[in-house]
């Protein structure tokens, strides 16, 4: 097109006619844009340097090695207040990934339930699902998080009146106290068994799929796979002579002691994120299922499939093609929204790193750039994985 307009440009005479040539105009415009952006960039860098010099802040990433001097309430890897800022970064990142991972699974389940509920033939269930979606979607997530943390969880008993909820677990305002498996050989064996179970189940799924595609034999790999995932660790547990020792939480002088603690911040953040995101996922699921042509369901019924079978074998696989791309967006939104943790004090990446570390180290530029880079990397890698999944779901030969 560019060449065409050049040729079509009325016979270029010498002089100022190039001013009216779209090609040269484009070049000039782009050059101007690049120069302006570079100038702004230079100005910013110069200003930052001048401002930092005035505040006596050294730039660079050396601060990551300095001792942090603060504690973090929830850590998945060992961390003390003598650890470095860099270690604090990893603690925060893992906490973000933990909440995003659990949140995505739970929000998907709840979202599918409510999305299917909106299409239920039962009038009452459909209306209730609609009410849920319309109420939850139209209230800011931050408000919901504050509500769960400062209002809902405050109705729990004080530490000294801890409520025992059975199986040796306690709940109070400071958290949910569960029996914890004590460190030992058994735990490693169990972990290996669980991983092996998952790997075996995946193999089974792949083989079953190949069998179905090549020979038309159906085999309920999902059910057997699930059985393997649960039975293998169980078998390993008894093979070891049921050696697992639990550390049961017990009432201490000031609070419940021992056991595995689930912080109220984590509970509130998870509840808020799951409840909020599920409303959006429900709408996506509904749109996806409505988007499957009616004839598909009728054809399934004509083949003698039950309603559940038709939904599971015919409708949902086709709906997934419509559902997956916007679902990816919701997963990314949930991950990004988990940064609201800072408002209720859950030690996620933004709270630990862009909050505490930034204030203690005064390295605003570096800290914010690193934080943004992490979220960008998370977004881009999730997009990649989900795009690959979507490509697999796409119908063959289209």
């Amino acid at each position: 097109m560019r060449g065409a307009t050049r040729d079509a440009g009325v016979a270029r005479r010498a002089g100022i006619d190039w001013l009216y040539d779209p090609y040269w105009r484009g070049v000039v415009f782009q050059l101007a844009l690049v120069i302006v952006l570079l100038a702004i960039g230079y100005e910013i860098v110069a200003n930052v340097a001048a401002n930092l010099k005035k505040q006596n802040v050294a730039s660079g990433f050396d601060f990551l090695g300095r001792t942090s001097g603060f504690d973090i309430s929830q850590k998945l890897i060992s961390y003390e207040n003598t650890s470095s800022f860099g270690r604090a970064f990893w603690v925060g990142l893992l906490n973000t990934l933990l909440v995003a991972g659990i949140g995505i699974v739970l929000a998907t389940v709840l979202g599918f339930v409510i999305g299917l509920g909106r299409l239920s033939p039962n009038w009452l269930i459909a209306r209730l699902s609609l009410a849920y979606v319309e109420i939850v979607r139209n209230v800011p997530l931050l408000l919901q998080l504050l509500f769960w943390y400062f209002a809902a969880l405050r109705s729990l008993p004080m530490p000294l009146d801890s409520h025992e909820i059975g199986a040796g677990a306690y709940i109070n305002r400071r958290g949910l106290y569960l029996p914890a498996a004590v460190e030992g050989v058994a735990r490693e064996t169990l972990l290996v068994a669980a991983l092996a179970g998952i790997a075996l189940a995946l193999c089974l799924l792949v083989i079953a799929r190949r069998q179905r595609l090549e020979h038309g034999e159906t085999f309920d790999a999902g059910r057997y796979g699930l059985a393997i995932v649960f039975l293998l660790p169980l078998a390993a547990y008894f093979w070891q002579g049921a050696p697992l020792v639990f550390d049961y939480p017990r009432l201490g002088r000031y609070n419940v002691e021992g056991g595995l603690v689930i912080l109220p911040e984590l509970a509130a953040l998870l509840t808020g994120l799951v409840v909020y995101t599920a409303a959006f996922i429900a709408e996506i699921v509904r749109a996806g299922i409505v988007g499957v042509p009616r004839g598909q369901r009728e054809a399934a019924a004509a083949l003698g499939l039950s309603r559940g079978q038709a939904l599971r074998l015919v409708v949902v696989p086709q709906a997934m093609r419509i559902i997956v791309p916007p679902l990816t967006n919701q997963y990314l939104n949930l991950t990004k929204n988990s940064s609201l943790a800072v408002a209720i004090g859950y030690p996620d990446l933004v709270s630990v790193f862009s909050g505490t570390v930034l204030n203690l180290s005064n390295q605003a530029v570096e800290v914010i750039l690193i934080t943004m880079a992490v979220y960008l990397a998370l977004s881009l890698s999730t997009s990649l994985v989900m795009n690959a999944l979507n490509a697999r779901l796409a119908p063959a030969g289209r």
Partner: protein
Amino acid sequence: MTDAASRWERPRRLPGIDWARDNLLDSWSNALLTVAGLWLIWIVGAGFIDWALVRAVWEGEDGRACSVPGAGACWPFIKAKMGLFLYGRYPEAERWRVGLTYALALAGLGPLMIPRVPGKLWLSLYMLVVFPIVAFVLLAGGLLGLPVVKTANWGGLLVTLVVASVGIAGSFPLGILLALGRRSALPAVRWVSTGFIELVRGVPLITVLFMASVMLPLFLPPDITIDKLLRALIGVALFSAAYLAEVIRGGLQAIPKGQYEAADALGLSYWQKMGFVVLPQALRLVIPGIVNSFISLFKDTSLVLIIGLFDLLGIVQQSIQSDSKWFSPETAPTGYFFAGAIFWVFCFSMSRYSAFLERRLASGERRE
């Protein structure tokens, strides 16, 4: 499911009963679900009415009135703080200026939103040019003998609405430019637009707000300081523009190629082509998506509390957490309920309006 035969033989009864039989009780599993649903409605609905009306405290001077065991919603808290929630620390003698601004906005927006009212061009001009200037003078003061009210004293719903409307007004043109840039034939323009959009969409709003509040002052020459509210506005507008750009790009892509070619054939320049031919059609196509972006933006304004501004949620949160006079177990639920209800009314009406526009546009398409 009732099969045709039994339906035929069934004697006619009251329509309500037949309806209930078909929609609620047509199988055992459905009847069970209906019972579960009714139980849920009873638990939530009755629990709410009990809390908000029956056990609620209506009169009181401070939090002690709401601290009695078994007390429900603490309405005196809302009553006492109403001025704060709506205006922040805007001086009481000057609050008429905020009210007048709201009235002027409604006078412009109301007729603009009703399709039948004529004179849309003049109304848009009023809303886009006259109103912002008048509103700025009214709210900030300093002219025409109006005393200056610093933005540090603005708060509550006022800040929420200012951030949302300036965010909308700022992000809309920027979003259009970014969308056009992303589809531009000029590679440098395309790369810059795409890079900006993907960068902003890949990070949480909080980090953008942190950047606006912490890093923006560093970017500027040392002797220039900008207002905290303005910094938040810039952050919100930039963030929202990236999302809006993707919505608008969808509309641009949906316009048939023939429209672009026809405009070229007529000899229109790029801006004439886009302004007179492509954008009017593209924007109309994506009105629902644009309104959805505005709803998100409206909800996202609540995040400014994290960088220390007192929007509606920020001021409610502050009153709950740090006003010891109103300390009671019921203060927090009541405050959050109040703020939530206001946000809900705004967002829900926006989404209903969007649905109305969508239906109207769809019927317009069908007629053609």
